[in-house]
């Protein structure tokens, strides 16, 4: 039961990543691309956690935590750059 659910979930998250990736490539404006990157890292967290459940390993969790922190910082830095034309104040 759990294995079946995990397989379906893997496919769904993979499609989600694919859709965000398409948006990252075509996305007409720069904020669109930032948003696509943001979504991409959230989806990656989901994929890593699912892998962790599937492989019975808690190690993937640490990677997910790091991606969450770094992704947030990246989004903030890029948006700040658009707002000010400069990252540091």
């Amino acid at each position: 039961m759990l294995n079946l659910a995990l397989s379906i979930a893997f496919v769904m998250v993979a499609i989600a990543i694919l859709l965000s990736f398409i948006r990252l490539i075509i996305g007409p404006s720069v904020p669109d691309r930032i948003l696509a990157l943001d979504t991409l890292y959230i989806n990656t967290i989901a994929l890593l956690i699912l892998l962790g459940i599937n492989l019975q390993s808690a190690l993937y969790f640490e990677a997910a935590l790091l991606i969450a922190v770094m992704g947030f910082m990246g989004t903030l830095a890029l948006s700040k750059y658009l707002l000010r034309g400069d990252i540091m104040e």
Partner: protein
Amino acid sequence: MLEWILAILIIVGAFFTLVGSIGLFKLPDFYMRLHGPTKASTLGVGAILIASAIHFSLKTDGVSLHEILVTLFLFITAPVSAHLMAKAAIHIKVKQVERTRQLED
């Protein structure tokens, strides 16, 4: 029984993650696309993380609560990054869909 709950949580989480990305892909302008990832994806990943917390609490002896940390972190940071991206988009005047309702005053 518990396996069923886990399976449902995982499927629901994956479904909402997918809905967020579908919103990102198909909605017509940036401000509308912003809604998908900030709400749906956050909840989706939250559900998957809670499933993971339950799973590891059962498998290993002792509770595994550190997944809650990532969930909380995502719920706090998602609106902040959405706010900043919207601000940046308004600043550089990203195009809106024509039928967007403008401010009344």
